[in-house]
């Protein structure tokens, strides 16, 4: 299946003229006027609709395929969340509309803050960060601001475990901090001795994901918290894996000072082909004065924006308005539909699916990276034996899975497990779909043993075969130029 570029459908003078007013004339001084129109396509409405509908059909998605992408929580995105966030009043509300004309929207945002506070055990929540990475930025910036307010300007080191997501060190750098990496133990937990060595008078804090990206819960998290706090540092919780513990254990109770939540993971807002996300942050008492603005406050039965007049030590604004409001509304609807009991079942059934899938794959002869540990909501298998003995690596398995109608798990992350697949089924997949996934991996294993080249050549049934990434980077073709 192949769909030509939209530009190839273009003919001079063709248009979807029903879409815009026909009469107006622009009035721009000669020297500021555009002389040549932009080279946008000239197509009919049907041509545009058919083109983009066909493009959509080239994608795998949650709605069409099992999508066990580890660390991404690709669970079902309820349609009601979308429909209700797109009520015309919500869509049409201007971000700077007066508070008096915004009480319905503000009430939703306030209640979302309160619910997120409750499930994370934090003291305050700001919804404004527009993605997980921006939530991380807000968190580290608050840690920096906290130390600076206490005169501890020398505290600029952020400790990050080797298993961390790449955004953690990138964020620390963005905040003007230096990164100190510490190793994980063979059982996946943090090496406390290495942590003790890393802690010192320059420590600003530590960034942790728990359960970690290794798919296991760090059992000594309380000791970690005590050590870091005793050294004068703060603990940052990367909420990438919050789905694993939702309703079971709260980051605030583990001793974390600040967390970000990926609402597009745990609270089921859509991933949209790579965004929009939403990275709300939660803080404990000591970081309350530094929250990014705006935050929604409540006085009596009225809601209002809190800004730098209310939070004078704020790290400031991270977006032109209040972040991804439409995403926040979707998360709000999702949380209201789950309710108290539903929220606890999320982690339970995510863990059930992950541990079941792990048990079945182990039973089928696949090697778990941490065989003696419980899986959290995800787990790692390593294909280093297949790579060595059969010459078929994790990427080959991943590509062949696409032919079987499954999106591939996360490959080659975390970096410290060789030839790994990080598999996260989420709570919304049925047992028979997990079984079918196991069957596919068993079939690929058997192909790899009999005809390795077949697996190495995959995929065969998708719109394209494997792509030449080297050529893509060397002969840069980033915009279409008509021949």
């Amino acid at each position, binding site marked *: 299946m192949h769909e030509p570029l939209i530009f190839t459908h273009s003919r001079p003078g063709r248009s979807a*003229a029903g879409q*815009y*007013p026909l*009469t*107006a004339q*622009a009035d721009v001084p000669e020297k500021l006027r555009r002389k040549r129109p*932009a080279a*946008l396509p000239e197509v009919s409405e049907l041509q545009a609709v058919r083109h*983009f509908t066909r*493009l959509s059909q*080239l*994608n795998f*998605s949650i*709605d069409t395929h099992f999508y066990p992408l580890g660390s991404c929580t690709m669970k079902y995105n309820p349609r009601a969340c*979308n429909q209700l966030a797109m009520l015309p009043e919500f*869509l049409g509300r*201007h971000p*700077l*509309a*007066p508070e008096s*004309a915004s009480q319905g*929207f503000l009430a939703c945002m306030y209640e979302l803050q309160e619910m997120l506070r*409750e499930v994370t055990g934090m003291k305050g929540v700001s919804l404004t960060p527009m993605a997980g*990475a*921006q939530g991380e930025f807000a968190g580290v910036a608050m840690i920096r601001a906290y130390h600076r307010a206490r005169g501890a300007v020398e505290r600029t080191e952020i400790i990050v475990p080797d298993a961390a997501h*790449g955004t953690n060190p*990138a964020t620390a*750098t*963005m905040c*003007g901090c230096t990164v100190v990496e510490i190793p994980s133990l063979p059982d996946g937990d943090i090496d406390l001795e290495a942590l003790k060595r890393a802690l010192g008078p320059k420590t600003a804090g530590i960034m942790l994901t728990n359960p970690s990206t290794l798919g296991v819960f760090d*059992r000594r998290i309380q000791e970690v918290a005590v050590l870091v706090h005793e050294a004068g540092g703060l603990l940052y919780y990367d909420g990438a894996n919050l789905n694993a513990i939702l309703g079971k254990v*709260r980051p605030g109770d583990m001793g974390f000072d600040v967390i970000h939540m990926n609402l597009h993971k745990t609270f089921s807002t859509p*991933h949209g082909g*790579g*965004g*929009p996300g939403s990275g709300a942050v939660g803080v404990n008492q000591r970081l309350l004065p530094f929250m990014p603005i705006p935050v929604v406050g409540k006085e009596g039965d009225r809601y209002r924006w809190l800004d730098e007049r209310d939070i004078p030590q704020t*790290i*400031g*604004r*991270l*977006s*032109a*308005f209040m972040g991804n*409001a*439409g995403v926040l509304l979707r998360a709000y*609807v999702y949380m209201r539909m*789950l309710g108290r*009991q*539903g929220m*606890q079942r999320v982690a339970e*059934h995510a863990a*059930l699916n992950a541990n*079941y899938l792990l048990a079945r794959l182990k039973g089928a002869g696949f090697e778990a990276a941490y065989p003696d540990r419980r899986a959290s909501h995800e787990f790692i298998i390593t294909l280093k034996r297949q790579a060595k003995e059969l010459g078929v690596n994790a990427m080959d398995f991943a590509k062949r899975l696409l032919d079987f109608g499954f999106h591939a798990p996360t490959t080659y992350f975390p970096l410290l497990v060789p030839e790994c697949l990080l598999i996260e089924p989420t709570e919304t997949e049925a*047992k028979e779909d997990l079984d079918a996934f196991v069957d596919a991996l068993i079939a690929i294993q058997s192909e790899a043993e009999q005809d390795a080249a077949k697996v190495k*050549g995959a995929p065969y049934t998708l719109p*394209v075969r*494997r*792509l030449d*990434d080297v050529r893509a980077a060397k002969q840069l073709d*980033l915009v279409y130029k008509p021949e």
Partner: protein
Amino acid sequence: MPFIPHTENDVREMLAAIGAPSIDALFDEIPARLRTRALAGIPDALSEMDVARWMTQRAQLDGRPLNFLGAGAYEHHIPAAVWAIVTRGEFYTAYTPYQAEASQGTLQLLYEYQTMMASLTGMQVSNASLYDGASALAEACLMAVRAHRKSKSARILAPATLNPTYLEVARAITEGQNLRFDVLPYERASGLTQSGALHEHHGEDITAVVIQQPNFFGLLEDVDAITDRAHAAGALVIAVVNPLSLAILKPPSEWGAKGADIVVGDGQPLGVPLSSGGPYFGFMATRMEHVRQMPGRIIGRTVDLEGKPGFTLTLQAREQHIRRSKATSNICTNQGLLVTAATIYMSLLGAAGLEKVAAASQTQTRALVDALTRIKGVQLAFGGPRFHEAVLRLDRDVGEVLEALARRNIIGGCSLSKHYPELGNALLVCATEMRTQADIDAYARALAEIMK
């Protein structure tokens, strides 16, 4: 149980396969004293029907007032086809196209988007989007520091006519990297950046000069003169533009003799609803020579092993998942779904349609200014050429007027009293192609009553 498929029998079979006595046992590695009690603060579950009723009531509280507010977010008509396609599950529920073969739809669309944005801005390359216009400016400033190797100062000059929130965001996001921002003043008579303002920084090491066109007051800056002066001073030029305005205004690539170096802005006017401020998307375009300093995802066209064309994420060596602490930015996802909307929007309208929308917005704003300035106590603050916003001066407190208008179901504009106290009772108003003459008359009648 909402969204969970397991029957009791499923659970039993799965636990047996795991060898665990209960679901609770799956959490036995979590220290017992950390286990959460009941979440008392979370309300009971609502059915879809009940949550729909609840949300509809909430939405109706805010209603659908007549909107004359812009200030960085603009109410344009969005063709029905745009969001009908955007919310197809294949776009809505896919993720970042790491598995290129299974993501050709998203990847090809992003390549088409990059092509359209490059053409609209006149630049050679565009990335696949950033979060919003304000954060895109922050990223552009950081990029300028990386790209301008001769400049050691990390100093950015930004005009006072830049959207003030953009400057706040740029400061907050770059704060840890020691950038310094200085503000270029504007002429009180014209509302334009003072043409001589750059002279005061003659001989200083300046990394980049920011120019917003149209500026925050809706006025058209003399972008040629500022661009040339900035380049003469050895600085890069960062253009902040409204993408819709580029249908009628010359693209930043043609500003002055050499053109702007980095172009950013908010893509919201291109098919994205107001939606309380987001999700929108930021765009960024630049010259090819700076492509490796650009943050965010970039899509390239290549071939597969049979020689067929295909699309893939490229230049990933800039990014956090490869470079970790040395990445160009910590940005990971972009705003893919909103870019999907913009790409479909631009395809449906074409250059001719965009030009008509821009022109109609400009025309309606002129009609709005004419109608409102006929009211006693209302004056136009700045008379020069503008796009689709204008600053009015009132003879009384703007906040009170806006509240009175809101009671009449009219969102009357943006008060400038917080950011521009020197302008007195100043009100920024906007009309797009969505506002009819009847809408404008209704606003004028209400304002006349209030100003009596």
